[in-house]
């Protein structure tokens, strides 16, 4: 699990490379980054998860009876409309939100009662959708903290995400960095943490088109046989590189399956939604897929 503190880290040492994916996948190239051995053990499981938030005097249901398994060696995309509960699902997995009922299992162990720190040390990592800023804290310190409980020993991660370490290690994580830079550093932090269970929450948000290609390559390229990668995303390119797509709507899993199986249904669903909206508006837009 890599829980022991590694030897002192030399942040400017780029000698070691992140292990690259060696599985070429099938001939179609679809899902090649995540396709691995069948019947792998579940790394992370959410069983019958319900989540409610208390607001004043009423309970607001957020998630209903969520059942999901994430296997080692596979990549998953969670997609769905805004406010459907995608981030809530992974925040329950990370322990940031405490579920109302159900169980969270990691490597078969019930971790429902464990806090965020303990789950992180076991090997669950989460890259925030909106990473917070820290006045005065250099990027270097953040990466060192990320590496404290991992075997990762370099900051090649910054280069991989398109940021020059010489320029960024001493920069502070405050308002002097743009939203896109903060987001890329957040992704680099998760890569430095090197967890078995990797969760990226809308990693593409706020990132420019050029960096987006790099982002896809680094998420795919650092995925390994013993890791499970979950990406919350709306981007077709990301949905195209995973093994399974999970559609969350109204706090429930409304579809789940292979990309080939699910993607056409999501597109059809989007068209249907568009048609409905057009009719509601009383006009047809020129780019309506209908």
């Amino acid at each position, binding site marked *: 699990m890599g829980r022991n503190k590694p030897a002192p880290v030399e942040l400017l040492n780029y000698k070691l490379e992140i292990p690259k994916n060696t599985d070429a996948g099938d001939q179609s190239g679809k899902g090649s980054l995540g396709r691995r051995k069948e019947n792998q053990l579940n790394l992370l499981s959410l069983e019958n998860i319900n989540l409610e938030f208390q607001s004043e005097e009423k309970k607001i249901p957020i998630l209903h009876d969520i059942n999901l398994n994430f296997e080692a060696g596979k990549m998953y995309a969670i997609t769905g409309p805004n406010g459907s509960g995608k981030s809530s699902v992974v925040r329950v997995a*990370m322990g*940031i939100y405490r579920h109302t009922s159900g169980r969270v299992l990691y490597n078969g162990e019930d971790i429902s009662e464990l*806090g*965020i*720190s303990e789950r*992180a*040390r076991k090997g669950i*990592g*989460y890259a*925030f959708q*909106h*990473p*917070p800023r*820290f*006045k*005065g*804290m*250099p990027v270097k*310190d953040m990466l060192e*903290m*990320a590496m*404290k*409980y991992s075997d990762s020993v370099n900051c090649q991660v910054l280069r991989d995400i398109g940021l020059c370490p010489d320029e960024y290690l001493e920069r*502070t994580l405050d308002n002097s960095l743009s939203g896109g830079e903060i987001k890329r550093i957040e992704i680099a*932090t998760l890569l430095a*943490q090197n967890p078995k269970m990797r969760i990226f929450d809308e990693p593409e948000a706020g990132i420019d088109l050029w960096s987006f290609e790099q982002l896809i390559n680094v998420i795919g390229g650092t995925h390994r046989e013993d890791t499970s990668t979950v990406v919350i995303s709306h981007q077709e390119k990301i949905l195209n590189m995973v093994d399974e797509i999970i559609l969350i709507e109204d706090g429930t899993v409304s579809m789940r399956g292979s990309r080939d199986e699910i993607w056409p249904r999501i597109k059809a669903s989007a068209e249907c939604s568009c048609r409905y909206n057009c009719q509601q508006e009383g006009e047809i837009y020129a780019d309506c897929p209908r």
Partner: protein
Amino acid sequence: MLTALDKKLLEEVADLHGEPPGAFNIRKDGKGIERRSLEGIEITPKKDQPGIDVVVAEGKEGTVHIPVILTENELSDLVYNHIDIGSGANITLVAGCGIHNPGSGKSQHDGVHEIYVRKGARLVYTEKHFGEGEDSGERVLNPKTVLYVEEGGYAELELVQIRGVDKTSRVTEAEVKAGGRLVMYERLLTHGEQSANSDVVVKLMGEESTARIISRSVAQDNSRQSFYPRLLAHGPGRGHVECDSIIMDHATVRSVPEIWAENAEAELVHEAAIGKIAGEQLTKLMALGLTEEEAEEAIISGFLK
């Protein structure tokens, strides 16, 4: 002869490990105990009052250490230091005071520094305060720094107090002439029943004079802090005041920045913020495996860095 305790205090306040490099003066329990002048950096004791004169010749480069340590109970030490950095000189000056109060009475150090940064000179000045003690005796530090930055001069002040000082009342006054630049960093952490008051007045006296005052503080437990940074532009100067405080537990923080312009070409900005540690910051660091306490410590340490 320095004792182990003296060395520890010197390490805390001046990062000294052994004899200081360059010129130095070490004051212990109200007396100068070691001193070294160099060619172009003259340190002499005052004849009429406690303290020293530090005179740096034109164009001289080097470092000067003038730390003060107090190791006795019920000691009140007052010192007047006059520092003159000659035109075109480039000096790093480390002051600072460390108190080890072994008893239950009050130990206090009041230090007045009058500093001249002459035309085109550059001064980086660090003053760090530290206190400790086995008993309940108060540790009190009241520094007053009066700074004059002449035309084209540059002064960078770093004033630091992290833990251990029960009461402090800090006064910093500066005048910056045309083309002069001043950058002042103040970092302060109070805890327990401690109190800290910081009064800063910076006057921009001429064209192209600039000042930047950055104050960061953390108030924990029942401690109390007050900040009064004032920036006055008598001429067409530019200045920025930034006061940020993290407030925790039952602490009290008062921050009253003031900007005052007497010239239509002046540009002055102030920002002040007081707030607790954001929950999302703690969550982020805990998601890296840190405990809540470790996360809090890391956030505070970064904030005061």
